[in-house]
């Protein structure tokens, strides 16, 4: 993984010192809250419902064991012994004190981490496929590209005060695990159909929130060498023409929608042609230097399948079930990538205690070349585990309540913090996730249902990605009580789609019954081997709507 050079180190240390001074001036009264707020947001510090919140960047979701251990330490020393992994693959602490945050940032800097640009109207933490570098369907590792963008976008003077926040995701695989079509810019690494040269498909204008949109392809093939100049052109068009008069219309998706994809592309290409490409694009030597950090490790030569692993599966049905859901094939024979579910039945999705973080760090050191990934679905990944070690890892995970076999299933629910923590939320989301997980806890039933993604947001900002959930749940306030709107048919993959609203909002206690009815329609009507989302696409919304309306006690 990438390591800071002396420039990165100095840049982060200087920023910590700067913020320490800003906090000092806030506390001595030199800065008002209005003056201080944009400064704290630039360093990932929010004021939530009960306390401050610190959002820490995990670039493209990649963590070392050392970094994870430091997060555990911070959670224990400065928070309440736990942290929350988010859909942007970041980590949030919910209870830090403002006066402690400069010390926390120093501890982060000690392990090459920071909270810069995890908030504010700038280019946010870049995300990528969590199986980067190990996926069998990968064309090229997306992390060097993501790291290049991280370096280019960090404190970029021209793009530090954009009309709104800006999110970029990269995938290098055929199957999109980074939700690139729901980002302001999504990059898909691909081979040119004729020349077989590697380049990018550039997708712009996706995003969720109050106006959900699927991104549009603005460049079908961009040579790799032109990446930064092209991104600069996209950002410049957006920065100049994005709506600054209305924050609800300020995202690039609105600009693309209002002027049309063709016209937006034309303006970008015009700007791209005007730019002095060589002065903007990265030096090939620098690109090679970055890529070298992501070179495949020295794998052992192993047989494609491990006898010990097969024997463990045969002798332990619980382990076999976990392997089926949580273990992913690896490009290197004899290895596997395993996903650690942060969705134990009934627990807040994405939360990990300091002890759990430490265990994951230990397991990474012992079994996964010290590497850990955070997924946008709020789980963790050990990407480099020998098949022969999986049983031992599974047992250790089980002792810490981290061996839930539900990745991709109905209880692997994405949920934003909602009104339990977030000052912007209009309803709770975690208790809905907990109730649904408990309702569908039976392992056999989960397996029978198969792949089904439920995503829950506690407000219209859609941090829980509900629009692209196979079943989406949006918490709102209706006449002073929490109300939940259900959507169906969303998809976060390469077949990205925005879900459609099924009917009026429901009271919290009615949500599990409504989901039960939706699932029952699917089970009754599915064809052999048909997944939930394929079933919805084949039979349409009408049967689900009918069942939903029978169940609903509408709030509004």
């Amino acid at each position: 993984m990438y390591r800071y050079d002396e420039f990165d180190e100095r840049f982060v240390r200087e920023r910590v010192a700067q913020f320490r001074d800003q906090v000092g001036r806030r506390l001595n009264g030199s800065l008002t809250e209005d003056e201080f707020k944009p400064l704290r947001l630039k360093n990932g510090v929010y004021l939530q419902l009960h306390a401050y919140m610190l959002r820490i960047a995990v670039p493209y979701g990649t963590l070392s064991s050392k970094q994870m251990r430091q997060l555990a330490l911070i959670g224990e020393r400065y928070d309440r012994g736990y942290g929350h992994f988010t859909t942007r693959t970041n980590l949030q602490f919910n209870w830090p004190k403002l006066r402690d945050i400069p010390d926390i940032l120093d501890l982060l800097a000690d392990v090459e981490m920071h909270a810069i640009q995890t908030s504010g109207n700038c280019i946010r933490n870049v995300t990528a496929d969590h199986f980067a570098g190990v996926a069998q369907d990968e064309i090229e590792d997306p992390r060097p590209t993501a790291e290049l963008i991280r370096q280019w976008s960090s404190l970029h003077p021209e793009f530090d005060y954009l009309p709104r926040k800006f999110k970029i995701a990269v995938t290098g695989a055929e199957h999109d695990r980074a939700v690139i079509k729901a980002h302001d810019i999504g990059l898909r690494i691909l081979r040119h159909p004729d020349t077989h040269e590697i380049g990018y498909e550039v997708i712009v204008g996706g995003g969720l929130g109050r106006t959900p949109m699927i991104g549009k392809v603005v460049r079908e093939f961009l040579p790799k060498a032109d990446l930064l100049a092209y991104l600069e052109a996209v950002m410049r068009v957006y920065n100049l023409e994005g709506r600054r008069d209305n924050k609800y219309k300020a995202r690039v998706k609105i600009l693309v929608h209002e002027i049309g994809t063709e016209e937006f592309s034309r303006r970008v290409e015009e700007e791209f042609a005007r730019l002095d490409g060589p002065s903007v694009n990265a030096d090939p030597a620098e690109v090679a230097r970055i890529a070298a950090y992501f070179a495949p490790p020295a794998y052992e030569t192993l047989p494609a399948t491990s006898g010990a692993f097969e024997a463990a599966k045969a002798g332990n049905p619980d382990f076999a079930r976990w392997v089926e859901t949580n273990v992913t094939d690896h490009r290197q024979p004899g290895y596997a990538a395993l996903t650690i579910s942060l969705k134990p039945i009934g627990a807040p999705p994405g939360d990990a205690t300091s002890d759990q973080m430490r265990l994951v760090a230990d397991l990474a050191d012992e079994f996964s070349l010290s590497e850990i990934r955070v997924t946008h679905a709020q789980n963790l990944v050990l990407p480099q585990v020998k098949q022969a070690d999986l049983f031992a890892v599974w047992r250790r995970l089980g002792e810490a309540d981290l061996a839930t076999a539900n990745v991709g299933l109905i209880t692997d629910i994405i949920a934003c913090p909602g009104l339990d923590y977030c000052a912007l939320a209009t309803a709770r989301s975690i208790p809905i996730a907990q109730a649904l997980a408990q309702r569908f806890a039976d392992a056999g039933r989960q397996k029978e249902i198969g792949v089904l993604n439920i995503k829950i947001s506690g407000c219209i900002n859609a941090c829980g990605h509900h629009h692209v959930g196979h079943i989406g749940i949006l918490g709102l306030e209706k006449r002073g009580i929490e109300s939940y709107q259900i959507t169906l048919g969303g998809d976060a993959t390469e077949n990205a789609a925005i879900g459609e609203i099924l009917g009026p909002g429901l009271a919290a206690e009615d949500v599990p019954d409504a989901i039960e009815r939706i699932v029952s329609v699917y089970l009754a009507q599915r064809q052999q081997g048909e997944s939930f989302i394929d079933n919805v696409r084949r039979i349409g919304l009408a049967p689900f709507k009918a069942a939903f309306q029978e169940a609903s006690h509408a709030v509004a």
Partner: protein
Amino acid sequence: MAAAKRPALPVILLANDLLDGDVVFAAGDANGLNWSRDPGAALIGHDDATADQLDAFAAAELGNQQVVDAYLVDVAIEDGVPVPRHYRERMKTTGPSIRRDLGKQAELPLAQAFLRA
């Protein structure tokens, strides 16, 4: 700029402490106000004069860098305790509903009263 509409009486004044972000309540009487972390100690504005006093205290304390995000909240009086009418502020005065071991609900017996409704 028009003044923000005041919520219906009775009201209490809540805010977040600048240093640690904890929710605090304006407490005291007509002779003077201070901040308390205990919701049971909140001064209840039953009339316009007290609500005005709370408003003025909020403005002064925001300026003094003692608190952030101070605003009046309409409450119901239940067993002598002011309970915010809106679920958002009820939760703000207790702690997260999913972690009863955190927040005021874990530390202050009186905050338990806010868990109702």
